[in-house]
């Protein structure tokens, strides 16, 4: 577990970046992970070129789901929806500093990125 709870993860968990709700956001999506009760409410704004300009999240969950959401709000800035759609587990693991997740924690780490993909799809951006 040493890895899972390394300093960087705990910092994002205890002091999440971009925590809250973006007013009048184009993307506004709820997603949860029923098997463990993690929930996320993610809002995002795109710029005039259609790139991600700002992302905020609110939610409850474990260190992995919350820290990864916090990191994601920074990592996707400037990306196109297609680039977001292409993000896979290993990208998220890299984003978290090269963590290797066990099968039981994969869903936690993917919650926020899946929420963002879902929200972009709902708005016809994907």
């Amino acid at each position, binding site marked *: *577990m*040493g890895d*899972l*709870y390394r300093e960087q993860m*705990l910092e994002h*968990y*205890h002091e999440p970046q971009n925590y809250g709700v973006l007013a009048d956001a184009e993307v506004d999506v709820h997603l949860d992970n*029923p*098997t*463990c*009760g*993690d*929930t996320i409410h993610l809002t995002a704004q795109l710029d005039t070129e259609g790139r991600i300009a700002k992302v905020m999240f609110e939610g*409850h*969950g*474990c*260190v*992995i*789901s919350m820290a990864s959401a916090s990191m994601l709000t920074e990592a996707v800035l400037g990306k196109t929806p297609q680039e977001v759609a292409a993000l896979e587990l290993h990208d998220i693991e890299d984003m978290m500093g090269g963590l290797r997740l066990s099968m039981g*924690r994969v869903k*936690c780490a993917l919650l926020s990125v899946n929420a963002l993909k879902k929200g972009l799809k709902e708005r016809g951006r994907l």
Partner: protein
Amino acid sequence: MGWNAVDIRREFPIFSHPVNGKRLVFLDSAASAQKPQAVLDAIASVYTTSYANVHRGLYSLAEAATERYEAAREKIAHFVGATDPEELIYVRNATEALNLVAYSWGRQNIHAGDRIVITEMEHHSNLVPWMALAREKEAELAYLPVNDAGELDLAALPPLLADGRTRVVAFTLMSNVLGTIPPAQELVAMAHQAGAVVVVDGAQAVPHLPVNVEALGADFLAFSAHKLGGPGIGALWGRRAILEAMPPFLYGGDMILSVKKHTATWNDLPYKFEAGTPAIAEAVGFGAAVDFLTALGMEEVHQHEQALVAYALERLPEVPGLHILGPTHGQRGGAVSFWLEGIHPHDIASVLDAEGVCIRAGLHCAEPLHARFGLPASARASFYVYNTIDDVDALVAGLGRVIALLRR
């Protein structure tokens, strides 16, 4: 009492291997128990000395396999107080046993407008089969509620039985989340008086308490070998008259008497419900696990766990912000679920793992029960014959680390 959990633990080979460099503190036996060497030996001895397909062979090896397979059935039947081994059917696990009842008995006996009563503390395996049956038959699925203390609200049962529409009452003999042991004989008596069949989920109780189907009075009892130290197999006990009146569940080899092109007749009990080649060595391993527990004494197993639970219920509240689910005194099973303010159960489990402490986190296959308590998930420590007071201490110490790391 002569109980010595440290000696008992030595009979389980897994405890001789450290986990993450630490002594293994296994507190997830409610999910699945570790296996004593005697069970491994029994399985290996079938494969090295007496393996062949059962029943159908007319040679010594097949006869030896059949004898061991049937001797195990007899042991397992007696272990739950059944006098007639033919009432005991081998299945994969408790889940399959409950599905067998819901499919075979249920589809024949449940009709539109009938009511099926279960409880709010059921494991999904004693819930979703009934939900599916209710949906197929347009029957009603009703829940006996659980109160804040984690006990069944018995007063809610008579109104559910009063109109004569309830055909089956299904409940667990021990909650895998709350540890609650419901007043089973009372429930059975009430249900029977209303003409309902009683299905008991013994998946948690059978490994941990003396269970006697005659004293219990129920019509079906489902349980799994893997939770009592056996391999991947399970059993359904049912009353002969009811089993005989039921249609088969799975069709195929061994469950038939005779097959013509468009008709077939069924074999006698228990084979009518055992289609295809059974899990032969696994059945023998199941019997060996039952022998192991019988030698310990099920009353002693229960006493041992009661002592561990009492100690855990005393020590866990020392952890700041820890809340226990379910009864905090009286008779209860060896599963203690709890939650920590501000910390997700997944993180509790992961941090404890680094200390060699294995607990379970999540919904424990009891989502409606968690909804009842307004919890998205919980953590659970559960005990078995090999656990000691030291294991509880390791849990409490580990929870200290969890808080140090994750709470601000």
